[in-house]
């Protein structure tokens, strides 16, 4: 049983103007197949789909995790299939900040500045143990977790995470965003 447009709650001009015949577009498609030839979505979902499929990261490689981040751009763990191989150097053009590596207190100010320069919507992935929690460096020099200064969406453990682990994190972020989970910058309980 084919669902008609009115079953979706949509008003087409045929309902509003009952005496009007099919339009040129409908004639070409065939009147019965109109509903089957259309993809129906909401604006939010369409926008989120576009954002997910081309989420460009910022070149924020700090330490060892940066080397593994470079290897996902390589040919084996190809990040280009997710539309993300364009690492933008300017934070104004980037959507995603992958904090890869240990963040020292000296680097914390530039990190926050880069985060502030990114335009919404923006996401942050804390890659590796050092970015998530300070890692093995529980000392005077390292910020104990990057979520103290920027709101983080995804935490990826291990030291350094395998490229597959980083991609799992990225894919979960895509799925979360596509499903409508608001980014961390919108949630009030984290540092914004």
């Amino acid at each position, binding site marked *: 049983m084919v669902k008609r447009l009115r079953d979706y709650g949509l008003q087409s001009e045929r309902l509003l103007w009952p005496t009007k015949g099919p339009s040129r577009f409908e004639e070409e498609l065939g009147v019965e197949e109109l509903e089957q030839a259309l993809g129906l979505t909401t604006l939010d979902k369409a926008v989120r789909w576009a954002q997910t499929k081309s989420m460009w990261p*910022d*070149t*924020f*490689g*700090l*330490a*060892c995790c*940066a*080397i*593994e981040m*470079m*290897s996902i*751009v*390589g*040919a*084996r763990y190809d990040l280009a299939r997710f539309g993300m191989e364009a*690492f933008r*150097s300017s*934070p104004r053009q980037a959507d995603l900040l992958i904090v890869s*590596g*240990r963040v*020292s207190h*000296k*680097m914390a100010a*530039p990190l926050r500045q*880069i985060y502030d320069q990114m335009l919404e919507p923006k996401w942050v992935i804390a890659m590796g143990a050092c970015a998530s929690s300070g890692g*093995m*460096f*529980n*000392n*005077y*020099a*390292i910020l104990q977790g990057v979520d103290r200064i920027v709101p983080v969406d995804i935490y990826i453990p291990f*030291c*350094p995470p*395998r490229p597959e682990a980083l991609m799992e994190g990225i894919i979960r972020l895509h799925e979360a965003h596509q499903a409508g989970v608001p980014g961390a910058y919108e949630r009030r309980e984290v540092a914004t």
Partner: protein
Amino acid sequence: MTIAPERTRAWPLVGEPPYEGSRIPARVPTILDVPPALRETDDILQVNFGPNHPSTHGVLRLIVDLDGERVVGISAVIGYLHTGFEKNMEQKTWWKAITYPSRVDYVSYQNNELVFVLAIEKLLELEVPEKATWMRMLLCELNRLHSHLVFLGTAALELGAISMFWYCFRERETILDLVEQVCGQRMHTRYFQAGGLAEDIPSGFFPECHAFVDWMPHALDDYLTLLDRNQIWLKRTKGVGLLSAEDAIALGQSGPVLRGSGVDWDLRRDSPYLAYDQVDFRVPVYTGCDVYDRYRVRMDEMAESTKIVRQCLDKLERMEGQPWIADDRKVVLPPREELHTSMESLIHHFKIVTEGYRVPEGEVYVAIESPRGESGVYVVSDGGPKPWRVHFRAPSFAALGATATCVQDVLIADLIAIVGSLDAVMGDTDR
């Protein structure tokens, strides 16, 4: 307050170059000052190559003074990755502290681990079995290949030869597969122990390593074909970033930077450690003192490393069944099967794991030839289970000190090539 001693001889004063003909900046050796004549004019633009930049390897900040496109002043600010390794390692037992050195120079991680483990063994005066020595050499040469591949990929990427990145990382993935097969992890393998290796070499490793070693010369030919006669590459790297041999020695350079300036010095050959005196390899030296020659030194070193790996493989294949770690039960864990039967083994295992082994009192400095140059560690032990002081001699720290000397009379685009050719890893610089 002390009294300054009488001058018994004329020594070079700060403010004068160390010798005639030196290009090292006179006032501060690591800062290139804008010449006073230019400072008066309004033409100098100060640009900040901030810590987050696609072309500076990691978090290096350069404050560059530009006259048009010419670089007339530079000063480097480091410390954005200072991790406090040395303080952290003082808190851990010797066993746990071995995890830390890998992260210092995170591209040639096994070389850093090796140097710390060699220092512990020197203090303990521990004999390492032959199999462990040769396997350590094999892994360090694979690590050298890995490091030079990362250098080549990123240096070419910054100069615009973007496709080199994918070629180099293809070989890098093969090397990491080999490393993962042996050590269980791609990077920061904690495979070296005080006394040898943590585990025996798995059986499928040798055929795969042979296959890689047979393929690698073809890959090197690929890279040379792409870059070596490329006119743009030659124009951008030849004659750029000159550093004379005298200046290089005075600035503490070592490794490919020193050999690219014509000084024939390689710790593997001149002060051999592990089993480097039993393998046959050539040390490439070029006299051009520029970025191109440093790149050629690294390319030739990759070919030599492949030769060394092949020789290690031949030797190791004949050592099946030999011990891979020393027998000293006060330092080395006993094999697991013994724990079921021997009480002493159980007690030793418990004491080593909880309390840690004791390293006799003393101080040592051990240096090896890492892909970046002379990488050393100074260890002071108080006779206890924890190190008293650990200090890493970082080749990248010295290399970045030479930036001011190399960038005299260059354009800003050449600055990128020069900083790339010094091959500084910021984890190594800032520790």
